[in-house]
Structure formats: C-alpha cells, structure tokens
C-alpha cells in the first residue's frame, strides 16, 4: 500500500492513468480477438490445436489487459493487487479444471452418446 498523498489527485492510483497504455490495451485486445476470429472462421486446425491456439490468444489478451488496463506491476502502489491476483489464479484453474475433469470421467462411464449427436467439446 502506498504512502498517503496530500491531494486525492496526487494519489498513485490517479497518477498511474496513462493514455498510451489504455490505447495500446484497446488496440492489442482488438487485434488478438480479430486473430482468434480469423482462426475460428477458417477452421483449418484439429479441435485440440484450435482450443490451444484460441486459448493462447485469450491468455495473451488477458496479460495485456492486466499490464495495460489495470497497470499491475510490482511497484509499491500495485504490489498487493499483483500478489493477490497471482494467488487467486490457481483457484480459477482448479475450479474449472477439476469440474471438467470430474464430469469428463462421469461422461465416459455413464453417458453413451448416439453417434449422430457427437460433437467436440471440452468433455472429450
């Protein structure tokens, strides 16, 4: 947490606002989403590779937003936000990953799908 400022407008949370960072964050996010859309529309990749490609583009977009929009770094003003985010990310991964894994196991043992309804999903 940072030292107290005399005027609210001198506070580090206010001073960290940056036009170039916000514009760069907007442009980077848009370019990455358009790239993901191009990959989706052309559909040249097998399902697993497609998921990794678009997921990778999303991950880069999220990292760009963390740095350029939120301004997260290890400075005195931002360090505790960065630390709390890093400590929470494993909870996100465990929540989604374990849920999908459990239901994938369940689906393999109990859900006999007709061939006509089979479609690639994360459960496969």
């Amino acid at each position: 947490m940072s030292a107290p400022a005399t005027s609210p407008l001198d506070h580090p949370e206010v001073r960290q606002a940056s036009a170039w960072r916000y514009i760069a964050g907007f442009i980077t996010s848009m370019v990455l989403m358009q790239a993901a859309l191009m990959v989706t529309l052309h559909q040249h990749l097998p399902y697993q590779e497609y998921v990794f490609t678009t997921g990778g583009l999303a991950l880069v977009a999220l990292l760009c937003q963390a740095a350029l929009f939120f301004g997260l770094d290890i400075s005195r003003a931002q360090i505790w936000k960065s630390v709390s985010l890093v400590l929470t990310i494993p909870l996100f991964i465990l929540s989604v990953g374990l849920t999908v894994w459990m239901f994938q196991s369940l689906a393999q043992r109990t859900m006999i799908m007709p061939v006509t309804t089979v479609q690639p999903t994360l459960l496969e």
Partner: protein
Amino acid sequence: MSTDAPPTDATKLFHPHFAGHDQISARTLGFWLYMLSDALIFTALFAAYAVLNNPMSAAGGPIAPQVVNPVEGLWQTYAVLGSVATYSLGTVALKSGNKAGVMLGIILSIVLALVFLGFETHDLLGLLAKGDGPARSGYLSAFFILIATHGLHMVFGIIWMLVMLVQIPTMGFTANVVARLINLRMFWQFQATIWVLVYIYVYMIGAY
C-alpha cells in the same frame, strides 16, 4: 485494542479516521479483493458451461454452434473494449482535475455500454422468441445465466457511472469521489476481461 494510544504503522488500519491513513489505497485494495471473489462466481459459471455445452445436455434443443455467432460477437467486443478505453481515458483527465474530460469519458463509455447491451438483449430475446429460453435445456440455462450475469454487471456499472455524473459536479474531486472513480475504473476494466473470456470460450470455441 485501546483507542487512546496514537496509531503506529502497524495499527493504522484500525484507526480509519487517522489523518495519515491512506484511504484511497485501502479502498482500492479492498475493492480489488471483492473483484477477485466476483471473478470466482464467473469461474463457477464457466465450469458449469463447460460441462453443459454438450448434446446430451441440450434436451433436443440447440447448443453453442446454433446459438452464437462469433462475427456478431466481435461487434460486442468492439463496444465493450471501446467503453472501457473511453472510461479509462476519462480518468487520465482526472490527473489534471478536468471535470469536463472525466464526464465526457463517462458519457461515451455509457453510450458504448448501451450498444453492447443492445446486441446482447437482441440475442437473448431472439432465443426466447424461438422458445429457446433458459428453461429449455441445461445448456441454455448455463448460456443464459453466464451471459446475463455479465450483462447485469454492465448494467450496474452504468448505474454507478450515472451516480458519478451527479457527484463530480456537485461534490468535486474529494477523496471519496476519487476513490469511487478509481474503483469504477477497475470494475469496468474487469468487465472487458470477463468478456474476452466469454467471447473466446462461448462464441469461438463453442461455435467450433
């Protein structure tokens, strides 16, 4: 704890009205922690969506490829990212105490957020008109709840912005108003982050 003793560095947090206490930092960190817990709600919804985006959970109804259109979703992505960018740029004007600049950023942000919500409402109402509402199947329940939860966050953000449009001219840039503007910036940027995940996972991977 005794309140007679003057606060030290270790006990300042227990004296919220102490003049040396950094209220803006305390409030922004507290709000950040709230947002992380809010993100866990979305995590649960994404987990439910991952499980239910399956023909066996469709009850004969549509699943993602028949429900979402990634090209239309890109326009929503433009709108929400543009809204976040304009609000964030408004807070650049806050550095110089420029009330008109901050309020212009908020107004542009509200307009783009309404465009986003217009697309979203159109999509959901279209599904309802075809009889594919949230009660139709497990998949549609997960889809509606995920999309609507994000949409409700956007609505709440718009209400918060309208409140700030009143408080900025009447109260000025006091410590309370500045803390609210900074927290609202984080909240609004958080909506763009969630939307990127929704767009990639629901509109793209779901449409494969």
